[in-house]
């Protein structure tokens, strides 16, 4: 090979080599930064803290989540105080995560923790107080590991059972909290069966909590029931 040509091309080859190495390193760094282990890296890279998609999730603390929770729920605050903070057997704002975990253990529940929440599937009959039904129960905790939300979700087999469930759940919440803030739909089998997305719902907004019950026809013979309690 011509040595003069080599000497002319050497600087360019060096630059190309650096760029190639840099590109490979970039792919490695960015790829790693998108893994759970690597996401905290983003906060140390200038310019990424506020604009990169995963930076916010990587830097969100329990107090951050609490702040966001309070902020987003503020719009649902009602005017009257709640007569009860009972949420399917748990006290909103005071029941502890330990208490929930003991309950889950006592009923042999398989629960999964994620962020500030705990999700328990295959909830057996008898694990909850009378009148409550749940295939899945989802607990939310604040930064001090106190229960701030209880969300029960289940699937009901037909319109008649769906209508009965929502009627009884609404009656139970009325006894516990008084008149609903909002109510929609008719708790009858005919209404629930009329078409997909037929829904009956009641919402109770109080100064310190929000409670909702709803049942929705999802088509294909599926009826989704939810009972939700949230501390404000």
């Amino acid at each position, binding site marked *: 090979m011509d040595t003069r040509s080599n000497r002319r091309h050497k600087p360019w080859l060096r630059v190309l080599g*650096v*760029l190639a*190495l*840099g*590109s490979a*390193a*970039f792919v490695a*760094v*960015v790829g790693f930064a998108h893994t759970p282990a690597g996401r905290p890296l*983003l906060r140390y*890279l*200038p*310019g*990424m803290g*506020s*604009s*990169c*998609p995963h*930076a*916010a*999730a990587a830097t*969100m603390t329990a107090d*951050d*989540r609490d702040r*966001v*929770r309070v*902020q*987003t*729920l*503020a719009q*649902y605050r009602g005017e009257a105080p709640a007569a009860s903070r009972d949420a399917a057997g748990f006290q909103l704002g005071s029941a502890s995560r330990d208490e929930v975990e003991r309950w889950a253990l006592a009923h042999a529940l398989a629960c999964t923790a*994620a*962020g500030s*929440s705990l999700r328990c599937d295959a909830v057996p009959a008898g694990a909850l107080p009378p009148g409550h039904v749940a295939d899945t129960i*989802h607990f*939310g905790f604040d930064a001090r590991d106190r229960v701030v939300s*209880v*969300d029960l*979700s289940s*699937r009901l087999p037909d319109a008649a059972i769906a209508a009965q469930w929502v009627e009884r759940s609404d009656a139970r919440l009325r006894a516990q909290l008084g008149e609903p803030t*909002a109510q*929609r*739909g008719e708790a009858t089998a005919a209404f629930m069966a*009329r*078409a*997909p*997305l*037929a*829904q009956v*719902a009641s919402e109770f907004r109080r100064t310190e909590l929000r409670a909702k019950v*709803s049942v*929705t026809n*999802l*088509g*294909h013979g*599926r009826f*989704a029931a*939810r009972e*939700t309690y*949230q501390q404000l």
Partner: protein
Amino acid sequence: MTRTKFSVCLSVLVVALAACGGDDGGDDGAGDSSSGGSASTTMTTSASTTATTSASTTDNTSATTDASSTTDDPTTDTGADSSSGAPACATDVCATYGAAVPVVAGLIVDQAAADPEFADFFAPLVGEGTEAVDAFKASLANFISDAYGCTSGAYTGPSMPEAHAGMGITQQQYDDFIALIVGVLQGAGVPDDDINYCFAPPLVDPAFEAMIIGQ
């Protein structure tokens, strides 16, 4: 540090800085905004309101009701559905509700971010601030508008499978999110017939569900 090592470090830093700098934060996981959604908003068209917003940002939608990015108009005005005998949509959805789509999209995001089942998905976006949330709402509005055939090409975000990739959305989460949307529509005064026969079809379509569930 030798010149070569310095060049390598500098090039890595430069390209890494460029990697996410253009992201607008309207990403996976919608969030509630700091503004309250009014459940009493009435959905009507208004000549003075703008139905859609610019889709110049490449934001994602997530955990929201969306149709395929190839938007077929699911609402028709042709009378009974002969295949099933069920009533068909008797309302011109775009004319009646088109201008209200941004409001409804905003309410969906607000309520989802406040919902205990979805709050963790949305909290990072809310934490990014109002601008990011508003961008997400605008993107969702564009998607809804395209999905119901009111616009074409307004939405420029990723496909539904791409937008939900890695989230592992379950059937139950999908169902509960659809139920949330129904609550928003009811609260906004949409008649039951329109919810059941106009808005429902794409939302309960198994093919559409499959684009979001289990991704």
